[in-house]
Every structure is written in C-alpha cells, then in structure tokens.
C-alpha cells in the first residue's frame, strides 16, 4: 500500500494494521526518515535547519511509488508492503517517510525494506527545500543515494 499525505503518521498504528492476521509473517522491517535539525552540508551559522518544505509531483509520485512496491513484491516473497510519504512543510524532528516490508524470514524483509527506500530516494519525484537562518536552499541529490540504489540494478 502507498500513501502520500501532508499530515503526520503514527508508526505504531500503521504497524498494527500491517500484515494483520497473516500467520506467514515472521519478520517485519521498518524504516522511518525524520527531519534532522542540523544538515552537515550546511556548516556555519546558517547550518541549523529550522524546517523544510517537500514538493512533489502529484500523479507521478503515486505512479512511481506503486511501481516501486510492485517491483519489491516481484523480487521478494513479501506478505505486505507499506510506503507512506509526506509533503508540504515539515519541522525539525518531524517524520518524513515510512517504509515497511513483511516476510516469512528476515533476509527478505530487510532487503526489500532497503530496496524500497533506496529506489524511493532516487526515483520518487520529491524535492526538499531547506529553510535555515541563512535562507532557503534546495537540497542537492547525493551521489551516495545513486550508489545505494545501484545495488539493486540488474
């Protein structure tokens, strides 16, 4: 299941309904991304991130996230998949994204969960605008994210 929303999500409540009643689940892996109050990329007085605004491409976002879920289900024997991603203005400490994968054993759950967030980070059309004391700046894509996503190629 995928969801794109402005409001916060409750990880515990999401997990309570996740793969509910499915006795084949032995392993669930969850990743939660949050807004740090300090971006190492911005050293100096303006380095403190007070908030960010996440822009996205309505329509394409949902299509891409659904494709990422489908690919994960194709690659691993998953009992359930969840992607929740927020957009709009988020303050330091706020949750941004949650991805989860449930499977019989942990290898599949871990790999699928990493795959979901790696592909999401490089393929889902979201852009972060950081608000700092020095002003606003669009976050640059990280080469490391491309490298992490490339693990799953081929």
């Amino acid at each position, binding site marked *: 299941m995928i969801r794109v929303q402005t409001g916060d999500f409750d990880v515990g409540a999401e997990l309570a309904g996740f793969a509910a009643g499915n006795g084949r689940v032995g392993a669930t892996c969850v990743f939660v*991304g949050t807004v740090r109050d300090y971006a190492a990329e911005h050293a100096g007085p303006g380095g403190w991130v007070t908030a960010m605004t*996440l*822009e*996205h*491409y309505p*329509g*394409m976002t949902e*299509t*891409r996230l659904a494709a990422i879920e489908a690919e994960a289900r194709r690659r691993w024997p998953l009992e359930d998949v969840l992607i929740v*991603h927020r957009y709009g203005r988020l303050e330091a400490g706020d949750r*941004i*994204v949650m991805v989860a994968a449930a499977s019989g054993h942990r290898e599949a759950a871990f790999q699928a969960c990493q795959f979901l*967030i790696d592909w*999401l*980070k*490089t*393929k*889902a*059309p*979201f*852009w*972060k*605008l950081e608000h700092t004391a020095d002003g606003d700046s*669009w*976050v*640059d*894509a990280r080469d490391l994210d491309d490298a992490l996503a490339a693990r799953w190629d081929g």
Partner: protein
Amino acid sequence: MKVLYFAWLRTKVGRGEEDLVPPAGVGDVAALVTWLKGRSAGHAEAFADLRGVRAAVNQDYAGWDHAVAADDEVAFFPPVTGG
C-alpha cells in the same frame, strides 16, 4: 501540451505549469527544451545546464530523445531528493 516545472526549475521559470502549443518541428524532449529556452530569460536560465535536469513524459522518466506530442504531459525537475 502541458509542461510542468518543479523545485528550482519552477522558481527559475517563474511558474509551475504551462499549457503550450509547440511548433510542428518539436518532436522530442531535446527539441522541446531548445524551444522552451527561447520563451523567457527564466526559461533560458532554468535550462542553461541540463546536467542537473531530469524529464518525465506522461509521468514516467524520459530521455532527451523521447518523443513528445501535443497531448502529452511533460515535466522538468532536478534529481529527486525525497525520502
């Protein structure tokens, strides 16, 4: 043709969406970009360095040689930074 801009491309162009009718010769993404650069100084600046620009046609990623037609939705944006 619906053309969308996101993130800093949107701020440079000065708007997020345009409904356009490109001339008949504009048959792929690269030709569309060349034509868009002539529309305003903001467009020219947004597309000055294409290394940091990605394109999507009808909500799927597309290369510069991907065909575009009158009823397509074409979007331009920097590499994504969500998650």
